[in-house]
């Protein structure tokens, strides 16, 4: 018989090996992140002082967009080739398999973004005090992005609509995270304590972790019949 943990890690392993197979895929969200951050000095201003002021917001916005862009592949690809049906017909609880897919998605998109955010902080002249809250905040925040995004991706899975409808659905949900995340960094840069904001971010992610897999599993059951 299949086991709960077997199914869980089986799904994670599968999604990671697909990402590995197209070697580029692992790095792509990262480069997207880099490129967006490059556009800002080009589009707005290369002055270090002005960049520093925008840095927290810009890094967060581009992390958000990087996650978002990778999102439509989360279930869409599985739907198109029919393997989503296998997932849904597994005797294991669907929310668990969905959670596994979300974790794999985060490992491929969120984690690299988190790891490279200090480099981008440097490039945008972010003051040193901001680095720790940036790292912490992005870790929690990208997790929430992946979790909430999964609900949107599940709802739009059968609609053949491209990624824009999806963005439209999930962006409003991302707003609170963005606000908490950037203000934690901003407060740290301004020399204030950021513990409270970070706690709210942590609470938001814990809460999302509790409900998103169920919501996404429910959304999939609805979404798959178009």
């Amino acid at each position, binding site marked *: 018989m299949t086991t709960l943990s077997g199914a869980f890690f089986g799904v994670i392993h*599968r999604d990671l090996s697909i990402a590995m197979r197209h070697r580029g895929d692992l790095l792509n969200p990262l480069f997207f992140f880099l490129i967006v951050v490059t556009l800002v000095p080009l589009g707005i201003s290369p002055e270090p002082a002005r960049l520093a002021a925008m840095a927290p917001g810009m890094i967060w916005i581009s992390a958000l967009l990087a996650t978002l862009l990778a999102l439509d592949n989360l279930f869409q690809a599985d739907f198109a080739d029919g*393997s989503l049906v296998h997932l849904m*017909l597994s005797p294991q609880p669907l929310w668990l398999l969905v959670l596994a897919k979300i974790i794999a998605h985060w490992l491929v998109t969120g984690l690299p973004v988190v790891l490279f955010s200090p480099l981008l902080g440097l490039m945008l002249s972010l003051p040193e005090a901001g680095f720790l809250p940036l790292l912490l905040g992005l870790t929690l925040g990208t997790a929430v992005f992946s979790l909430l995004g999964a609900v949107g991706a599940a709802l739009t899975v059968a609609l053949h609509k491209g990624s824009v409808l999806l963005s439209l659905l999930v962006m409003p949900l991302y707003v609170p995270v963005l606000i908490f995340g950037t203000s934690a960094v901003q407060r740290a840069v301004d020399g204030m304590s950021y513990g409270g904001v970070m706690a709210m971010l942590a609470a938001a992610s814990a809460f999302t972790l509790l409900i998103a897999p169920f919501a996404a599993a429910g959304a999939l059951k609805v979404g798959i019949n178009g």
Partner: protein
Amino acid sequence: MSSQALLEFQALTFERDDWPLFSDLSGAIKVGEILQITGPNGCGKTTLLHILATIQPINVGTLRWKGSDISQCHQSYLADVAFIGHKPGLKLSLTPRENLQWLSKLQPLNRCTSAEALARIGLAGFEDVPCYTLSAGQLRRAALAVLCMTQARLWLLDEPLTALDVQGIADLETLLLAHVEQGGAVALSSHQALTNPAVRTLALDAMAEAEL
């Protein structure tokens, strides 16, 4: 209904928006039989198989698995059913072997190893090439390899003969026969006649066509 009935469906009615596809359809899939669902294009074969696999919710009617209502025993039903639809359900960038391996984490596929299954279905030598390099028929074979490995008693197959060559069809028929002889059951849709003696046909009315 006979005690041998694995899956019974009673008074199924299905309509999409205001288009009734079938109404008051009853029947059963019994142990040891291959139920071939036939009917002209658009009569609702795929829809019926999706309903039986609980992918598509039903409007009216009941599904009973081994005598009890399907909503009561959904998990154990899912553990005992293998569904292969129009789409192969394989990740194209993985190899057939890898695909079978992750599927076996989800479903009870342990009657044989994936290499044996692939060899039996005529894909020996292709275990480790990415699926996107397989031809249409090879891809379908890879999808069908699941059937060599599964312990599920009920197989639901939507047009499994598509894209298979003559040898492939013969292989599949052998597989089906072996399965029903061991007490399993199969429901499949196909426009081609099977040579199997265990086949019983369920002809769906062509409401869609009839209405024209």
